[in-house]
């Protein structure tokens, strides 16, 4: 099958590394929150103070913003915007791309200088790029992770829940 259509399986060990990387990033920048998203908008890992209830919608919107800025880049014959910065009154958000696959976001307030966030985010994206590389290379069989009866159970659940 087309390798682009198979799932991206992030093993426990790699999730732990991502969590550590994000919590260092939050600590070192004095930021409030860091998120790692898949380009499809799904949240892989989030770290920081408090629980954001709207995190799912946040992921969808940030990924959408990034994807649309990429289209803007193309129209300007720019290869890509690797980073995006959005400035609010209370909070700012800094977004960086990792190998066209993942998106790293740092949410921080006025107390933190953007220059520091830029430098530390760059460091973190390099680290996360190597995690991503390892994730891509581990061709774990789906059945090994999900179990062979997953599909039939899933179909039953779909029939049960998707109805008027």
């Amino acid at each position, binding site marked *: 099958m087309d390798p682009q259509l198979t799932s991206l*399986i992030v093993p426990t060990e790699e999730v732990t590394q991502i969590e550590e990387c994000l919590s260092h990033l939050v600590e070192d920048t004095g930021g409030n929150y860091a998120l790692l998203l898949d380009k499809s*908008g799904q949240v892989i890992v989030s770290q920081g103070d408090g629980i954001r209830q709207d995190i799912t919608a946040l992921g*969808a919107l940030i990924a959408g913003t990034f994807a649309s800025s990429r289209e803007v880049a193309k129209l300007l014959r720019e290869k890509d915007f690797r980073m995006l910065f959005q400035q609010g009154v209370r909070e700012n958000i800094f977004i960086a791309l990792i190998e066209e696959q993942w998106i790293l976001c740092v949410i921080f307030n006025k107390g933190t200088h953007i220059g520091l966030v830029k430098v530390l985010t760059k460091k973190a994206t390099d680290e996360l790029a190597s995690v991503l590389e390892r994730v891509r290379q581990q061709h774990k069989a789906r059945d090994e992770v999900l179990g062979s009866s997953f599909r039939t159970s899933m179909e039953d659940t779909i029939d049960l829940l998707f109805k008027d």
Partner: protein
Amino acid sequence: MALINVAAREIHCKIVYYGPGMCGKTTNLQYIHESVSSDVKGDLLSIATETERTLFFDFLPLDLGKVRGFQTRFHLYTVPGQILYERTRVAVLNGADGVVFVADSDKSKLEENIRSLKELAVNITRQNKKFQEFPIILQYNKRDLPNALPVAVMDKYLNGMNWTRHEAIATTGVGVFDTLKSISRLVISRL
């Protein structure tokens, strides 16, 4: 591509409703949001113009709970169908695991349907995915219209690939869940 987080035991799949302007993509999501049980659905997020046309996307997260120990989530999106928003559709399509192509059965919309489907093929190919292998379900919407084209005619122009297709009236919900079930099963079969 679907995302499986082994540590959190989570699976995420992204499904995009694609099709020409006004064909009923947003109406599909609204019906699902109104009808599905409240422990399954999240909030429906719509970024639309003042006239209710989709400007960026609609987004509806569905949480199917634990299946064999894995928390399973489907994220449904619609693209903005108006010609003007071609680049925005590319952005929303990014990372999709499956597509529902919603065609408008209105006789006068056949050409728009064909053009939109061609554009979808180009956009999927540009993401380095093989269009022939990409999970797609067809929906012929607005079957209630008096001037609806016969299904056989729509098949001839739109379903050369022999996808599973459903007839629908999204405003009353006919065929909406059949379509959702088909695309979900198809995406799961490719995990």
